[in-house]
């Protein structure tokens, strides 16, 4: 039975810290339908239990899936799209690779390119088709400030996220005359399990609660690109425009 009254929210990579905190904001004390998709069934289960306490009236569906094969992605998205409407889709999965390891090992490099670049793009493409047909919904993809300019410390991750940036740009162009909104999120370094080793090295990280709040508010306001924390918009503008002879001297 399709329930058309509740807002239906699909989260791909639901156990990622940013996605988890966005989902809390979208569901707490509201009645929504959540579709939580992740790779680890036990983690998805824990997430669903938490959300059930925060949002007892909501319907929560748990799906375990792999995100790398085109055929798996097709089946996953078809399954989700055929079971209800797509009001909000957040694509949030990813990993932060060890740049050195990617330079040494091309298999690692391939895996990281796929999980951070190709996979979110394929999932977005699959959802975009359904959303365009229904002429409604908001599709949100998490990119990164790292995608704005390649830097020696993490250009493999940066290249994958750059792929996401360019892809979303094109999709926004394609769907500009429809009722489908496409939003690109570019978080700066955020305090999550993915960045724990950066913090250990003394990096200043934004809190995941504040990042999630800015994402949720930005989507509400209808922004097309959301830098969070917002200071990164300025920082990346400077970094993108630095002349190469200066940029190449920087140890970043």
């Amino acid at each position, binding site marked *: 039975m399709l329930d058309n009254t509740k807002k239906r929210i699909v989260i791909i990579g639901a156990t990622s810290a940013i996605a988890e905190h966005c989902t809390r904001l979208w569901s707490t004390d509201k009645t929504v339908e959540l579709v939580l998709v992740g790779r680890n069934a036990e983690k998805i289960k824990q997430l669903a239990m938490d959300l059930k306490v925060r949002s007892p009236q909501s319907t929560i569906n748990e799906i375990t899936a792999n995100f790398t094969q085109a055929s798996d992605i097709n089946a996953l998205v078809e399954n989700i799209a055929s079971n209800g409407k797509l009001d909000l889709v957040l694509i949030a999965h990813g990993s932060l690779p060890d740049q050195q390891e990617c330079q040494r090992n091309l298999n690692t490099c391939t895996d990281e390119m796929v999980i951070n670049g190709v996979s979110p793009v394929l999932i977005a493409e699959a959802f975009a088709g359904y959303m365009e047909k229904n002429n409604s919904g908001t599709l949100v993809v998490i990119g990164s400030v790292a995608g704005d300019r390649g830097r020696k410390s993490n250009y493999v991750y940066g290249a994958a996220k750059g792929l996401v940036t360019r892809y979303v740009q094109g999709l926004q162009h394609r769907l500009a005359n429809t009722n489908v909104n496409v939003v690109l999120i570019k978080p700066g370094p955020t305090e999550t399990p993915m960045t724990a080793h950066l913090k250990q090295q*003394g990096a200043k990280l934004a809190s995941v609660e504040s990042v999630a709040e800015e994402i949720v508010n930005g989507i509400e306001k209808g922004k097309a690109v959301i830098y969070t924390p917002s200071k990164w918009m300025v920082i990346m503008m400077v970094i993108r425009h630095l002349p190469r002879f200066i940029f190449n001297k920087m140890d970043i």
Partner: protein
Amino acid sequence: MVRVSSWGGLDNFEHHVSYLSNRDDVTQQLANRKFNGLAHGMGKSYGDVCLNPNGQLWSTTGLNRFISFDEHTGILKCESGVLIRDIQQLFVPRGWIVPVTPGTQLITIGGAIANDVHGKNHHVLGSFGDHVQKIKLLRTDRRIIECGPELEPEWFSATVGGFGLTGVIVEVELRLRPVPSAWVDVENIPYDNLEDFFKLADESEKDWEYTVSWIDCLSKHGRGIFMRGNASKTSEQIVQSKKKVTIPFLPPISLVNKLTLRPFNTAYFHKQKYQAGKQHVHYEPFFYPLDKLLKWNRIYGSKGFYQYQSVIPRNVGADAVQEMLNQISRSGEGSFLAVLKTFGNRESIGMMSFPQPGVTLALDFPNKGKKTTKLLESLDAIVREAKGRVYLAKDARMPRDLFESGYPNLQKFLQYRDSGISSALSRRLIGN
């Protein structure tokens, strides 16, 4: 390595920090330690109870998931890094409240248990541990201990108020309490001396759930404002301002000093006296007046501050408090933040819990080196003589003999200690 300091900001130290974020992975993370470790929540305790310099810290704030809630019994099961704030914000509108809460809600449930924190309603509801039904404790040797008031009660009694030394608390079952509204009916009554304070405290115990008082620590006779309140049955539609202010920088010297303190205290006393009477107050400003001022510890400047909280048995309470005020008044030290409160006539559930029958005085002192520690030593002497104890969650410097005389269950407690856990406080007061 990450530099970590506690709320008092006396010092900061390098720590190896690992971040716990999945409850199923904690056992492995504890086993992987390279050094002895310590669970660390929001770091809101004042002294060194939450620090482990050059050792491992297990940061618990990523363990912030709820697990289940039974709306018939009010039993909430959650991970230990959930904040009191998270529970209050979600459940007060649904008619449930955390039964016992300290003066900040920005603390984890694990920290609230480990320090067995108390609040304004101690005489009615005891301390935090009295409302814990079950704890899941992980030991560094991979043992899992589930304990509660009836299940493994000795482990429970060691862990409640056990300042993190018995293992890492990962999951908790808490009994929330029904509350008719988010508001409190409050009455503020000025008092001119300690005798009046005790009279007010005694006569308020029966009919008022919340009692506390602000005391002007520079006044000779101990003038102050007595505050008492009850949960209100009526709500107001006023929307609470969510605005928070952050102290923007760390001043080189304490802004609380001889020039500012006396006029500030006098002005505050007279303002409150002028406004005394009955009020209808939202629970947030009532319980957590300082939470809107983020990083307020910065007002004490870069050298940080000590907090001194003691509890003195009631039979000598009035004299001992008077003597402490005399010492402080003579020194001209002290601060605006001074709290005087009577505890109820009940023993705590934890072997090492702080609350015991008597009167408790809590004061901040900007750190001025020797001058300050000397004053604190004179307060120690009064507490020792009166057979009182000093609160570990606030302490950074008490001498070992005062710790041992204040906490007679120490030897029994040590049987439950986890040998893979150590803190700055345990090394200072227990020796390892």
